C-alpha cells in the first residue's frame, strides 16, 4: 500500500491496545515528582522567596527558583523574553515562580503551600487598549516601545483611492475572543542525567529540536550533551510548540539531585501555559467594484498577546500576510499591533494568526457582495486568483484547486436550491473560503541548514528503518514515511520501522508547526528513498530482501541514504516578506447549515460540508481526519470557546468543565471532500491538510446565521445571548421600517 492509499496508521496497534507510551507513561526507579508554584498576581515584583519550610517538609528532596536558571529563552530568537521560573517579576496569574521535587506528588503539592513569597503587587494591564494607553506599566522589558511586542504596517498599492472609488464598501469591526488548544494530554516532561553528564529529556513537545537548543543554552550544557525525545503525544495543535517551564525545571532538578524527575501539568496549568489563539479586534474595510471584484482590503488589527512573545512576532505578520488568496486584491493594507498584557501568553493555535482575520474577511465579503446583490458563491468565483500567480504581497501561489472546492460544497449542500432564505425562517446556509501555508520559508532561527532531514537504512532482512526528526502529533507523519518508502522502493510498508523525534538518533526536523511536515519531511524522505531505490534497481533481485542483500554486497557497506529539504528563497522583497511565504498553499471551502431558534437565540450547526485542496492525498483517511478535526475545532470556537478573565487578570474556569469543547452530541455532521490539484513542488503533489480546513468554518457559520435570520454576528463566540440581542435589534429596525412605511 503506497501513496494515495488508505494505509492503516503504523502506530494504530500500540494506540489501540494501550501499550503506546506517552510521556506520563514513562517512569524510572527513584524518580522524583516535581510541582511548580505559580503567581496569584497578574503583575508583581518578587521581594523574596522563603523556601525553608518547604525544604524541610518530609519527602522533599530539592527546590528550584528563577535565579538558578536566569537565562532567557523563547522560541523566536529575537524575542527571548521568558525564564523557566520568574526572575524578579511575575507577569501573569499562573506565571511559574518556584519548583519543588519530592518523593511523591502529594508531598510536592503539600510542600508548595509552605513556600512564602513576598510580592509587591504592581499595576497591570489586561487589555491591548490599556496596554497601548499605559506604556508606563511595562509588562515585559523586551518591548522596545511601551508594551508593543511587534507593530507591522504593510501597504501594497493605493488603498484609500481604491476604497473611495468603490461601488460597495463593507466597513465594520470584528472581535475574536481568545481560545486555547485543549489537547487531551497535558504537558509532561521527564529528565534524567547520567553520570557522564549526558542529559535526556522526554517531553510532550512538537519541537524537540528547538527544545534541545534552548535547554542547552539555558542550562549551559553543550547541545551535544542534551538529548530530547518526543514519545507518543496526545494532541498539540500548536500548544506544545514553545519550550516550557516544566522542561527546564525537570532538567535542572535532575542535575541537582542526580535522580530522574517528572512534572505532569494539571489541567489548570495547561491553561496558564496557554499559547493559544490571540484575541483580535479587527477593523476591516473591504471594497468591491461594481462587478463585484475586490478593489481594496484594509485591515487594522489590535492583537492581545499576553505576557510573553512566544510566536507573537510571526502572529503580527500572519494576521495580514495570509489573507491574499484565494481571491485577488487590487490593493491591500494592514496594520497590526501585537501587545503585551498581563495574562497567560498567546501563541500559535491551529491556523495561527489567520483564523481571526479570515473570519472578518469572509463575512465582509458576503456583506459587500450583498450590497451589490451578488450571490456569495458567485462573488468568490468571480474573484478567483488563479494558479501560478503572485499575490499582491509577493507570495507565489502554485497549484490552486479552490474552484473545485467551491463546486463540491455547492453541489453537496444543494446551495442553489437551498440558500437565500429558501429554507424558511430560522434555517440557512453560509459559505466561506480560505488559503493556508504548507510550511514557511522562515526557519525560526537563521541558518543555512536543511529544515528537514531524513535518514533511511535497509537491512538484509528487507526491513527498512527510517530516522526522522519530525514530530508525529497524531496527524500521521510516521505513517506517511512508511508509504513513501513503499512507493519508491517497493517494500512492504508494514515492514518499516520509524525512529522519530529523538535528537540523538534522528536528523533535525524543525517541528510540527505551520503545516510544514507533510511537504518538507515528505520531500526529504522521498529524496532518500529514491537514492536507495536506484541502488536496489541496479542490484536487482527476486524479492525486496534479496535486492537489499545484493545492493549491500555491491556497496560493500550498509545501505543507507539521506534526504533533506532546503528552505527556498520565497516571499516579497520587503521587510517581513518571507513571513507567510510558503512553497505551496492549500485551499478550502465550507458550506455550513445552521438552525436558529429565534425565541431563545440558541442555534445549532446541523451540518458542515468541507472541501480541501491538499494537492495530493498521500493517505486519504489521514487527510479526512485532519479535515474533520479542523472543522470540529473551528465550529467549537464559534460555539463555545473563550478565555475570560476577571478584573485582576484571573482566568475564569481553568478546567474542562468550565472551558467547554463540544462533546459528540454538540458536534455537527461533517462531510469532507478531498480535492487534488497535484502541486508541482510538493511530494507527489501534496500540500498541507492540518490547519487550512479550520478557517472557513467560523465565517461559514456566521454567513449561515445571516441566511437563517438576517443578522450579522461579528463577535466570537456566537453566544445565544448575542444572537438574541441581534435578533431583537433586527426586529426593532423592522418595526421602525414598517412605521416609516406606514406614515
Amino acid at each position, binding site marked *: 500500500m503506497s501513496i494515495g492509499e488508505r494505509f492503516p496508521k503504523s502506530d494504530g496497534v500500540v494506540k489501540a491496545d494501550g501499550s503506546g507510551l506517552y510521556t506520563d507513561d514513562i517512569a524510572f526507579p527513584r524518580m522524583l515528582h516535581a510541582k511548580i508554584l505559580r503567581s496569584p498576581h497578574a503583575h508583581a515584583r518578587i521581594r523574596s522567596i522563603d523556601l525553608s519550610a518547604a525544604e524541610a517538609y518530609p519527602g522533599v528532596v530539592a527546590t528550584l527558583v528563577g535565579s538558578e536558571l536566569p537565562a532567557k529563552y523563547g522560541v523566536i530568537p529575537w524575542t527571548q523574553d521568558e525564564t523557566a521560573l520568574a526572575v524578579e517579576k511575575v507577569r501573569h496569574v499562573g506565571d511559574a515562580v518556584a519548583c519543588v521535587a519530592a518523593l511523591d506528588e502529594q508531598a510536592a503539592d503539600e510542600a508548595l503551600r509552605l513556600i512564602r513569597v513576598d510580592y509587591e503587587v504592581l499595576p497591570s494591564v489586561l487589555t491591548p487598549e490599556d496596554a497601548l494607553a499605559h506604556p508606563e506599566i511595562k509588562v515585559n522589558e523586551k518591548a522596545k516601545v511601551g508594551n508593543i511586542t511587534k507593530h507591522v504596517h504593510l501597504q501594497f498599492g493605493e488603498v484609500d483611492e481604491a476604497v473611495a472609488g468603490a461601488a460597495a464598501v463593507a466597513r465594520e469591526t470584528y472581535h475574536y475572543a481568545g481560545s486555547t488548544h485543549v489537547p487531551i*494530554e497535558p504537558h509532561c516532561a521527564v529528565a534524567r542525567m547520567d553520570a557522564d553528564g549526558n542529559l535526556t529529556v522526554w517531553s510532550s513537545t512538537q519541537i524537540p529540536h528547538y527544545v534541545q537548543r534552548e535547554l542547552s543554552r539555558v542550562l549551559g550544557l553543550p547541545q551535544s550533551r542534551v538529548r530530547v525525545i518526543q514519545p507518543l503525544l496526545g494532541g498539540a495543535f500548536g500548544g506544545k510548540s514553545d519550550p516550557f517551564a516544566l522542561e527546564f525545571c525537570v532538567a535542572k532538578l535532575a542535575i541537582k539531585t542526580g535522580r530522574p524527575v517528572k512534572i505532569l501539568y494539571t489541567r489548570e496549568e495547561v491553561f496558564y501555559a496557554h499559547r493559544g489563539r490571540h484575541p483580535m479586534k479587527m477593523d476591516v474595510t473591504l471594497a468591491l467594484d461594481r462587478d463585484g471584484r475586490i478593489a481594496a482590503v484594509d485591515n487594522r488589527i489590535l492583537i492581545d498577546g499576553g505576557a510573553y512573545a512566544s510566536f507573537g512576532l510571526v502572529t503580527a505578520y500572519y494576521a495580514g500576510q495570509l489573507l491574499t488568496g484565494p481571491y*485577488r486584491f487590487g490593493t491591500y493594507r494592514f496594520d497590526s499591533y501585537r501587545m503585551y498584557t498581563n495574562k497567560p501568553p498567546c501563541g500559535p493555535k491551529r491556523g495561527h494568526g489567520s483564523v481571526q482575520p479570515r473570519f472578518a474577511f469572509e463575512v465582509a465579503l458576503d456583506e459587500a457582495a450583498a450590497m451589490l446583490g451578488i450571490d456569495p458563491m458567485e462573488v468568490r*468565483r468571480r474573484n478567483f486568483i488563479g494558479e501560478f*500567480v503572485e499575490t499582491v504581497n509577493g507570495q507565489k501561489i502554485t497549484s490552486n484547486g479552490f474552484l473545485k472546492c467551491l463546486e463540491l460544497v455547492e453541489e453537496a449542500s444543494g446551495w442553489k436550491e437551498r440558500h437565500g432564505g429558501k429554507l424558511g425562517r430560522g434555517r440557512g446556509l453560509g459559505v466561506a473560503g480560505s488559503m493556508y501555508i504548507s510550511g514557511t520559508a522562515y526557519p525560526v532561527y537563521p541558518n543555512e541548514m536543511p529544515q528537514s532531514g531524513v535518514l533511511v537504512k535497509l537491512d538484509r532482512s528487507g526491513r527498512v528503518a527510517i530516522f526522522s526528526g519530525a514530530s508525529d502529533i497524531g496527524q500521521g507523519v510516521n505513517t506517511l514515511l512508511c508509504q513513501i518508502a513503499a512507493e519508491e522502493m517497493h517494500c512492504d510498508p508494514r515492514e518499516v520501522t520509524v525512529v522519530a523525534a529523538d535528537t540523538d538518533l534522528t536528523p533535525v526536523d524543525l517541528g510540527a508547526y505551520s503545516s510544514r511536515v507533510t511537504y518538507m519531511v515528505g520531500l526529504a524522505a522521498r529524496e532518500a528513498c529514491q537514492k536507495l531505490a536506484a541502488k536496489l534497481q541496479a542490484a536487482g533481485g527476486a524479492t525486496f530482501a534479496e535486492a537489499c542483500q545484493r545492493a549491500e554486497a555491491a556497496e560493500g557497506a550498509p545501505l543507507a541514504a539521506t534526504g533533506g529539504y532546503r528552505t527556498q528563497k520565497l516571499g516579497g522583497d520587503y521587510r517581513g516578506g518571507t513571513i507567510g511565504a510558503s512553497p505551496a498553499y492549500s485551499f478550502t471551502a465550507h458550506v455550513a447549515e445552521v438552525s436558529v431558534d429565534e425565541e431563545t437565540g440558541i442555534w445549532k450547526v446541523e451540518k458542515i460540508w468541507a472541501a480541501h485542496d491538499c494537492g495530493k492525498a498521500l493517505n486519504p483517511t489521514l487527510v479526512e*481526519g485532519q479535515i474533520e478535526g479542523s472543522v470540529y475545532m473551528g465550529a467549537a470556537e464559534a460555539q463555545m470557546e473563550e478565555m475570560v478573565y476577571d478584573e485582576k487578570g484571573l482566568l475564569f474556569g481553568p*478546567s474542562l468543565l468550565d472551558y467547554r469543547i463540544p462533546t459528540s452530541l454538540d458536534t455537527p455532521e461533517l462531510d469532507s471532500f478531498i480535492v487534488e490539484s497535484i502541486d508541482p513542488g510538493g511530494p507527489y503533489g501534496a500540500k498541507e491538510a492540518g490547519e487550512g480546513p479550520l478557517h472557513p468554518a467560523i465565517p461559514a457559520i456566521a454567513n449561515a446565521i445571516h441566511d437563517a435570520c438576517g443578522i450579522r454576528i461579528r463577535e466570537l463566540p456566537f453566544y445565544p445571548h448575542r444572537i438574541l440581542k441581534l435578533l431583537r435589534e433586527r426586529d426593532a429596525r423592522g418595526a421602525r421600517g414598517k412605521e416609516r412605511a406606514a406614515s
Partner: protein
Amino acid sequence: MRLSALIRLNVNGEDHALAVPAQRTLLEALRYELGLIGSKQGCDKGDCGACTVLARPRGAAGRGEAILSCITLAHDAQELAITTIEGLAGPQGLDPVQRAFADCGALQCGFCQPGMMLSARALLDRNPKPTLPQIKEALSGNLCRCTGYTKIYEAVQVAAGLRSPAQRAPVRSERAEASDSVAQPVKEFAP
C-alpha cells in the same frame, strides 16, 4: 511512608494485592502501582473521560459498564471487576472495536481513545446494533479533540458489522484560470 492499607483489586481477570493509602484513586493505582498505563489522565476530575474503565460487580457476567477511574477511590474498587484497555485484546489479537478504531482512522493522537474504545465496547456489549444517536449518546462523556468524532462513529459501526469503512475518492481539480486578469492584474509565473 504514607499510611497504607492492603487492598485487593481484580483487573482484567487477575487479582492483585496492593498497599495504597485511602486517598489513592483507581486511576493512580492502575497506572502507577499496576503499570497499566493505557488508562489516561486528561483532567483528573471527571470532566473528559480519558480515564474510563469498565466495571462490574465481582462475579457478574460480561465486561461491565463505563465508569471514571480518576474519581473512584482504589479502595472502593475492591468489590468490582475492572477491565482496562489492556484487557480488551485477547489471544486472537485485538478486539473488533480496537481493530476497527485502528483501521478506520479513528485514532489520531490516540490519547482519548482507550477511554473511548471502552465506552464503545460497553455500548456494543449491551446493544450490538446501535443507531447513530445511540452511539453518540454512549460516547458523550468522552471528549476527543482530534477527530471531530466522525471516524469514531464509523469505527463503532464497522465493529458492529453495520457498515464498511468510508472509501470516498479524492476529486481531481483541473488547471484553473484566474477569473479575469483585467480588473486586478496579478503577476503570473511559470509553474
